[in-house]
């Protein structure tokens, strides 16, 4: 049997740039084909060509599907042929129910009147297929991200799917949900479905992919079959970045001083459910030059802990003490927290970190406008040179600092957020998922920056869901579970198993 999908010599030009250059992709029926590459390598563009977002004629090359050449005019066309794409950003309507979402645009209706019974019955079937046990009437907004991702898959299954494309399906999922999702994909495979999965996470690829295509700078650099022998992660990384990556984490010689920042008996109540204690009396400290890690599953309260400390931007009825160099300080507003040298780099850079439709330089100066102004009047020239300095220092890749942030890739956006906070001159940096959704090359640069900051004597608190990253970067770790710190360990003695064991053990009590 021949390949189910063959994309030949795909070239896609945008004004001024060639996004794809003679890309070839061959997918065999019944396999899971992984596509990886750095951000901006052309993965999403290739999938948009395949799914008809860019209609036939706007690109060069041919698409053969099940032996026929296909020319799609729209997403509808590709869906009719059974090519369904699930985008990275979930496209669900929060205030509609599960069943309404699954059949959105594809309603089970007769002459425009929705057939409630069929809808209900089919929804139940589909939910069963993806292993969900929710009522079809449940609203999407009441579900966690992991379940929402499954709803997306159920929605895809509701159409006649022959080739399922998943764009970073586990990007926003925690460890457990990710594993469950991967298991589900393997089950679909055993039923004969063909899938393309875009992913940054090499361990996932190693676990479920049958073959891997690596894209770099809009061109195919390598296609590997991993059925015969397991793929070496380093080989993939090397292909992705085009250079040898001796270490995934920079060498970091800890030079740890006295305790600078301390939080005592920190209690926070849930923002919506006022009577629910969410952060249950946490104590921790950070020392000068130390990189402190906070591990834990998503939903364990790490972000809420950080934000409640940073100017009470989360939660109600907050109690506890924050000590800076032994003195209790007031951090009840963001202004006060910044004044005391605390910075919080958010996990959600688009939602909470950046003013997207604003220039890079305006974003960099935003948390410290006093530093580029006098008597409330901004010195444009000074602001420009500050932005320029950070662009160089942190290696923000952009034509100039007048660019809108929305035009930058994820890694460069993250660098802009970091620049903003570095310009505010903090002593204590809380980094919440600092490398989420960014590619290997940019990750390494950010790790180097973190190590450099620690060397300069700053305290770093690093919150992350990626355990290898915590183990590779930090000096000491706290493990968080359901609003409490359940373990503390020196990173040198820590391992993924130890962390997981701490979480599981805490969960049993």
């Amino acid at each position, binding site marked *: 049997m021949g390949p189910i999908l063959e994309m030949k010599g795909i070239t896609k030009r945008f004004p001024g740039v060639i996004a794809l250059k003679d890309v070839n992709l061959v997918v065999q029926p019944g396999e899971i084909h992984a596509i990886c590459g750095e951000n901006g390598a052309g993965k999403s563009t290739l999938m948009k060509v395949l799914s008809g977002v860019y209609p036939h004629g706007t690109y060069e090359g041919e698409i053969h599907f099940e032996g026929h050449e296909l020319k799609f005019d729209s997403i509808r066309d590709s869906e009719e042929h059974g090519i369904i794409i699930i985008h990275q950003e979930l496209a669900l309507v929060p205030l509609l129910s599960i069943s309404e979402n699954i059949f959105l645009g594809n309603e089970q209706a007769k002459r425009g009147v929705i057939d409630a019974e069929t809808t209900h019955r089919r929804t139940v079937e589909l939910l069963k297929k993806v292993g969900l046990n929710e009522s079809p009437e449940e609203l999407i907004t009441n579900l966690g991200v992991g379940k929402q991702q499954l709803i997306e898959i159920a929605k895809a299954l509701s159409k006649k799917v022959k080739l399922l494309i998943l764009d970073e399906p586990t990007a926003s999922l925690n460890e457990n949900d990710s594993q469950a999702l991967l298991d589900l994909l393997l089950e679909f495979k055993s039923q004969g479905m063909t899938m393309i999965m875009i992913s940054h996470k090499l361990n996932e690829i190693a676990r479920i992919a049958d073959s891997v295509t690596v894209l770099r700078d809009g061109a195919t650099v390598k296609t590997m079959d991993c059925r015969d022998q397991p793929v070496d992660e380093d080989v993939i990384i090397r292909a992705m970045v085009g250079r040898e990556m001796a270490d995934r984490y920079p060498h970091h010689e800890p030079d740890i001083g006295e305790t600078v920042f301390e939080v005592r008996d920190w209690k926070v109540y849930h923002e919506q459910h006022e009577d629910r204690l969410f952060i249950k009396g946490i104590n921790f400290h950070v020392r000068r030059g130390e990189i402190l890690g906070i591990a834990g599953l998503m939903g364990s309260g790490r972000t809420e802990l950080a934000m409640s400390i940073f100017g009470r931007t989360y939660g109600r009825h907050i109690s506890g003490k924050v000590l800076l160099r032994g003195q209790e300080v007031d951090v009840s507003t*963001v202004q006060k927290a910044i004044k005391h040298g605390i910075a919080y780099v958010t996990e959600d850079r688009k939602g909470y970190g*950046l*003013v997207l*439709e604003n220039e890079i330089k*305006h974003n960099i100066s935003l*948390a410290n406008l006093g530093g580029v102004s006098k008597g409330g009047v901004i010195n*444009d*020239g000074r602001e*420009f040179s500050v932005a320029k300095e950070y662009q160089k220092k942190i290696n923000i890749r952009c034509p100039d600092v007048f660019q809108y942030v929305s035009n930058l890739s994820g890694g460069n956006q993250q660098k802009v957020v970091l620049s903003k906070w570095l310009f505010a001159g903090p002593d204590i940096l809380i980094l919440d998922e600092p490398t989420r959704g960014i590619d290997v090359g940019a990750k390494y640069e950010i790790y180097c920056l973190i190590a450099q900051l620690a060397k300069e004597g700053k305290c770093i608190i690093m919150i992350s869901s990626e355990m290898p990253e915590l183990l590779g970067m930090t000096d000491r770790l706290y493990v968080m579970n359901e609003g409490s710190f359940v373990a503390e360990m020196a990173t040198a003695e820590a391992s993924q198993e130890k962390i997981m064991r701490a979480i599981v053990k805490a969960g049993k009590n």
Partner: protein
Amino acid sequence: MNSTVEAVAPITEKKSVATFVKKNIREYGMLISLAVIMVFFQYMTEGTLMQPLNLTNLVLQNSYIVIMALAMLLVIVAGHIDLSVGSVAGFIGGLAAVLMVEYQWHYVPATLACLAAGALIGGLQGYFIAFHRIPSFIVTLGGMLVFRGLALWLLHGQSVGPFPREFQLLSSGFIPDPLGGESLRMTSLLLGCAVAVAFSYMNWRERANKVFYGAEAEPIGFLIGKNVVFSAVIIYFCYLMSSYKGLPNVLVIMFVLMMIFDFITNRTTIGRRIYALGGNEKAARLSGIKTDRLSFYTFINMGVLAALAGLVFAARLNSATPKAGVGFELDVIAACFIGGASATGGVGKVMGAVIGAFVMGVMNNGMSILGIGIDWQQVIKGIVLVAAVFVDVYNKNK
């Protein structure tokens, strides 16, 4: 040798000017549209549009819209809207009439009291919007009804006037002319020249500052061209006005306010913070910006300028009527959107709003001269509003 160098230099210069213009076309697009509209009506009205008398009227008729558009722009950039400004302007006009005509207050304390009342009204609405998170559309829709009703109540449904002569000068007066001149008001003309020189100097300094810090600056040829054109236009307008009665007082007020608001939005930290608030409120808040208070201030500001506009309008009519200001809010909001402000906040320029106001004003005026009925005037204005925003959005997406 010399001749080749000379021959080459202008070409490169020209090229860089052309690419610069291309890159910045959006910034000047609105201005060009206004110029085109003016030329069109100048031609269609056989020169009536630009006659000194009509030009003066044009300024007087639009002054209150421009004044409110300045503050409305900040409100819209902050991500809100204010539907109450027409009613507030009418109410304040009524208040001024009651104070000055019925209670015989001196015009200075009366004016100050009216501006303070405007601030209070803006603050009241802003309080609910900023601190209690009630959508501005709803609060100001309520305000629109409340202050329209209060204006009616205050004036007992009748017109009240006339105002003291000094107060009328706010709208109908012209700047004094100590330099004399029979047919030409020399002071006004010289003032125009001074503004042109100041404008050129400021542009020059801004560019020098950019060059000093190594930022990309506009090509020198473009700067010179821009300054020559702008100066010529400013001086020509002042010349036309000078040949009638000189510059109206209200034009001076308007111009000073324009400069202040342009400066606030472009150069000050508070302006920058308003843009950040409208662009992404959460990010602004997490960057240490007091977003609630900032929203509150934009509404106080809106209240004060709506009050000022109400005074200008009342002084112009020389009486306060309960109907004063009806529908102003729509002209003001339209001016901001025509001028490139985004309905979702975070985007918009003061000069854009001013130009937008004059686009509407010139069309009103031109169509009236042409004898086009009020029915078709509204249809055309509506189409222009949607078309202007469509072109803007279309260009952005491209």
